[in-house]
């Protein structure tokens, strides 16, 4: 097998591995939790791990909606997105084109973009009649920041960086071994 094919195959395998790894991680601390940080992990398979219940209790005072697994319907389709990302470099083996590279990049980037949009809506879609009224706000998909009494650390986790690696391998294969010929 030539290097081009090898790179494309690895590029196609990485997203499948990352389905089982944490995609995004967000951690909260507020004075009411003492030294403890509440960690929430979102996995590529759509699984969420963490004390959502405790976050919801803290959130309800300011009219933030309960985060429940039923309400997060997108998560059910997350594994298919990963499979789609895995499929792109494999399809390109049949017929290579810059379109596949662009699609690969677009699909990978759609994840943080979607999370960011979701966070924006979450912070702006406040329930009327909450006990404490606050200004709408925007949490970030990546970074360390503070909102009211909450310290928040958000990180795109290893699952996402495997998707980035998958794109880079596919792109290198295209640029060095396909276009160069």
């Amino acid at each position, binding site marked *: 097998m030539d290097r081009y094919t090898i790179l494309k195959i690895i590029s196609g395998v990485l997203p499948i591995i990352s389905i089982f790894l944490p995609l995004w991680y967000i951690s909260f601390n507020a004075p*009411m*939790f*003492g*030294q*403890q940080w509440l960690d929430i992990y979102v996995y590529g398979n759509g699984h969420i791990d963490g*004390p959502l*219940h*405790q976050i919801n*209790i803290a959130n309800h*005072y300011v009219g933030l909606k309960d985060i429940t697994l039923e309400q997060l319907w997108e998560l059910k389709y997350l594994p298919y997105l990963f499979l789609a990302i895995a499929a792109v470099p494999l399809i390109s083996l049949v017929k290579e084109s810059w379109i596949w590279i662009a699609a690969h990049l677009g699909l990978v980037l759609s994840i943080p973009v979607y999370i960011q949009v979701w966070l924006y809506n979450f912070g702006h879609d406040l329930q009327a009649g909450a*006990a*404490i009224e606050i200004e709408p706000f925007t949490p970030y998909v990546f970074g360390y920041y503070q909102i009211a009494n909450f310290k928040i650390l958000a990180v795109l986790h290893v699952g996402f960086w495997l998707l980035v690696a998958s794109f880079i391998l596919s792109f290198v294969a295209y640029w060095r071994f396909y276009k160069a010929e």
Partner: protein
Amino acid sequence: MSKKRNNSRKNGVRRRDFLVAAGGLAAGAAAGYIISKSVAPPTPVLPTDIQNIINQRGLSPEHVTAALKTYVPGGMQDEFYMISSGGHSGQVIIIGIPSMRILKYIAVFTPEPWQGYGYGNKATMNLLEKASNGIRYLTLGDTHHPEISRTNAVYDGEWCFIGDKLNARKAAISLKDFRVKDIVRLPNIQNQHGGACASPNTEYIACGSQFPAPWEPGKGYKPGVTYYPLTEANYKDYWRGATIFIAFDRNTGKFDLSRSFEIELPPYVQDLEIIGWGPSDGWAFLNSFNTEMAIGGTLEGKDPLEISASQRDFDYLHIINWKKAEQIVREGKYVEMNGVKVITLDTAIEEEILFFAPEPKSPHGCDISASGRYIVIGGKLDPTVTIYDIEKIKQAIADRRFEGEDYYGVPVLRFEDVTAAKIEVGLGPLHNEFDDKGNGYVSCFISNEVVKYSLGPPDYTGDDPFTVQDRITIHYNIGHLATPESDSPEPKGKYLVALNKWSIDRFEPVGTLHPQNFQLIDISGDKMSLLYDMPIPLGEPHYAKIISADKIRPITVYPLGADPYVIVNGGYATHPQAINVGEERIERRKEGDTWVTEVWMTAIRSHFTPDIVRCVEGDLVRIYLSNVETTRDATHAFAISEFNIMVSIDPGETTTIEFVADKPGVYSFYCVEFCSPLHLEMAGYLEVRPKE
């Protein structure tokens, strides 16, 4: 030339060189000595701001040292837990060492509102009911001797046991959630002191009675029933002491009377008890006083008890072969009395379960050294501690060397046959504990001091065994003392707490009833030094156990729906009525002749659901209250005005509240534990509609 000198050096130091060097050294040393004598060595200087604080507060170097040894900054944790009795508060106190911070009061024999203990929480009401004596609902207790569960005689930090002297009860407290799981009333015993003491693997918790109770021959003592006129003759014939070995099951947290046994004892005042390990495994020891069998009678021409019970120079150390007693019970040689298998005094003598050894004079304390070899008794009215040797005891019993029998026929060993040493320590020696270096420490009530002495081999291997090593004055009137994990094979040394009965002038005056004074003493060096005075404004703490903090493994949140009072296989059972958010409801139906309103309620920051409960006058109301929080500290408390109801529901806990809505009206209920910014709004109403 130089070569020549080198050669000569190789052959050895020349005499002249040596003399010059030696002279130089001597002169230098002398000069150095003179200089060092005349010029003070540089004193280490503290930063000015620290020195200023010391000056402003008028602290001595000893104070500063003590402060540095005891200060535990916020957020840092203590080295040891002290589990102290709360005396007649009926509670137990948890204290951190060396900071001496109070961490918790645990309600045991007395209702306590903060923990919602005995104020409507059905499980706690049931516990107090079960612990009552059948003639009265008891809400008083006098906690004396705590004990910690053991594995191979070493404290394992899972359970704590505490006795109630006043009403002869024993409680088991889980050291996972620091709550009482069971209380048992000790049959045939009116009051007890003997402490809780655990067998090496906590199969039994043993303790002796204190003041003997009247026994109907073959039937024992029954509160409110058994009666004989109090005369000296009747006292000898009908009054009896006892020691009970209560079976305990760690997996359920319950005592089991059906597997327990009791040994009938003469009507002496039995006092402190301990169960041995190592060479003393299988044996229990129990001291006594008033072998005079005096009953007082100051208005009837008799001496008061304090005089008439102190006439003899010796009382009796009870030596009990408990493993053999267990065997005797298995063979069926017992009489069932009030729900427990009793080995009668006659059987105990006949089967050679019980022996006495003389002990001077109205003693106190009964403690075993780390090796399990020495049993140490404080003389109380005799200024000595007596150290018994289990090897000698076993030998004397095997050789049947007795000096005679007591009034009831119990064989009495010879004092000189069974003792290793008698050490004169100070006035009023009460109680001994031990460190990790083979030393004993005895509290001397009358001379107001703690005296340190050496034991013998194998505990102490120095060349001055059984000698006083040091003494320190305490403030004031010390009762018991406690060192970490003493009376076990692995005492830790380092600290000693003197449990002083009087504080007199040690704290700011607060009227006429003064706090007790716990004094923390550093015993890590050769000399003891005082570190800290801690006021205890709650009952009269009697005795305490100290255990390494790393052996205590508490939970901080219950698993959701847990019933803290039902333990299954060491974990919490799910409360049968536990619910989650969305399952709340109210149902009213008839149970026999009674209307019952049942409420499935949740508590979460910051609301009870439902927040309006409607029922009818005369209804039995049962509220199954689930705290569905999973956050540490998110405890809610539920109280109803005018109803004397107060329940604490810790995160994850489900509890049952039961009461009769006997008066019509509308009553508010609210969360009593400040939980959130909307805590004040966490409230609701109980509507009791008048009966048609």
